[in-house]
């Protein structure tokens, strides 16, 4: 008999671990149900949360990218004054792009957006010549607008003021809260699963004790539990993944219809559902195996 280390698993042994893991799932039916439910609930919450956060993030970015400063040029400004203003604006470090739009162009845009009633104004155009200014980063918009207001040829610099500032701070808070909540949910899920598997292992500590007494290796004892954790994770992910896949299909359709023509839109079905469900699957597998691993370790190191 060899006195060294016993390693190398035979295929027959692996099949045994498979059988054993399924047998354990059945034998501990209620514990299995509890563990699977824990995975289901947490993954479902995490999944829904991910979908909402990713879309909020997308909408936020859409809105941010659309923010621009409209600089109204004083009515009495001469061509040279306009050129001077343009140079002043362009020299601001925050400014990325400046486009000129004459009051005639502005009116045409207005007519296009609002309808032909506005052609009346062609007789006496009440609009200003406008510089449309984009900043490098959307957050720099208010600061840049304040600076532009100081220039002598500026009548007014408009960017939707408070609305934009509120949006920025809301998006920032929402992202941080989202990250913390998702992390918290995942931690709770792992804790629940590891505890549940700990209880199933505890129920079988006698079995483990006997296995050790008759000379089973630690890995031989560990494998069925790891597989069991894997099955629990996978079983628990079925409902959440289906819910996200089906639910987002309808949500995306319903909401996209309402958002048509606006500059914001939801993330498309495939680009959202594929990575989110893949991530959910990875999380399910990871917390299942990880949960059983840390639980079984306690019973092996005697």
């Amino acid at each position: 008999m060899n006195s060294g280390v016993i390693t190398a698993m035979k295929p027959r042994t692996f099949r045994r671990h498979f059988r054993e893991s399924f047998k354990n799932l059945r034998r501990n039916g209620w514990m299995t149900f509890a563990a699977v439910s824990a995975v289901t609930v947490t993954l479902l919450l995490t999944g829904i949360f991910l979908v909402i956060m990713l879309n909020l993030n997308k909408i936020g970015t859409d809105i941010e990218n659309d923010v621009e400063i409209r600089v109204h040029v004083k009515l009495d400004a001469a061509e040279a004054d306009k050129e001077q203003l343009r140079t002043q604006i362009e020299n601001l470090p925050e400014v990325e792009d400046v486009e000129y739009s004459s009051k005639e162009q502005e009116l045409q845009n207005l007519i296009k957006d609002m309808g032909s009633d506005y052609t009346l104004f062609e007789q006496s155009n009440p609009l200003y010549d406008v510089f449309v200014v984009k900043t490098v980063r959307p957050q720099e918009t208010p600061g840049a607008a304040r600076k532009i207001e100081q220039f002598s040829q500026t009548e007014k610099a408009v960017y939707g003021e408070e609305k934009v500032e509120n949006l920025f701070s809301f998006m920032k808070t929402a992202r941080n809260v989202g990250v913390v909540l998702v992390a918290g949910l995942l931690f709770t899920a792992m804790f629940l699963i590891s505890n549940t598997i700990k209880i199933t292992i505890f129920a079988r500590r006698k079995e483990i004790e006997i296995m050790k007494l008759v000379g089973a290796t630690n890995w031989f004892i560990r494998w069925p539990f790891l597989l069991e954790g894997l099955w629990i994770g996978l079983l628990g992910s079925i409902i959440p993944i289906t819910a996200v896949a089906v639910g987002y299909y309808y949500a995306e359709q319903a909401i996209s219809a309402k958002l048509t023509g606006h500059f914001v839109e939801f993330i498309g079905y495939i680009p959202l559902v594929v990575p989110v469900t893949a991530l959910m699957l990875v999380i399910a597998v990871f917390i299942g195996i990880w949960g059983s691993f840390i639980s079984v370790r306690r019973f092996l190191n005697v």
Partner: protein
Amino acid sequence: MIDMQGVTKKYPNGVTALSGVDVTIKQGEFVYIVGPSGAGKSTFIKLIYREEKPTGGTVIVGGMNIATLKQRSIPALRRKVGVVFQDFKLLPLLNVYENVAFALEVIEEEPAVIRKQVMEVLDLVGLKHKARMLPTELSGGEQQRIAIARSIVNDPKVVIADEPTGNLDPDTSWDIMRLFETINERGTTIVMATHNKDIVNTIRRRVIAIENGRIVRDEQRGDYGYEA
């Protein structure tokens, strides 16, 4: 087979269970370990299958040094040492056959070998006809015979028994002892901790008496030596 030199065992809580124990047990011997409760019998037994490690001295079992044995080498030791307990330690959800086969399955024995050896030992312990029954359907003596069958099914060099008759009535205890004698006759070393005066005084074998963690007596064909 088993060699202890200057063995000391001190538990983390400060209790000294064994001190200065020197014993050599040869292959094929039958040894009783006797002594009052708490004298160190169980610790002595546990050192042999590395449930405990000595805090001083050396313990060699089947050529393996218990004190320096690596965690991952424990399974190799346990495959040379069969263990039997007072409370049988059978798995209640497995039937008799499965309980015995379990010991071979977990060491990845060939299925054909498992079938053959399990049926052989069940025949030896006289319970072949109850192979499909659950442990709970059997008497205490029968359950202990299953536990003994499990301990010898992989043909270990030594069987360690901690109070194997402690939960059994006298008649059943004699049956169990006859079984241990049969196993011993096949060349397996038996080390048995016991409180059973009648058995020790009737089936005369080597007796090692432990008191306060020291060996106070070691006699071939000794007697129990205490009032039971």
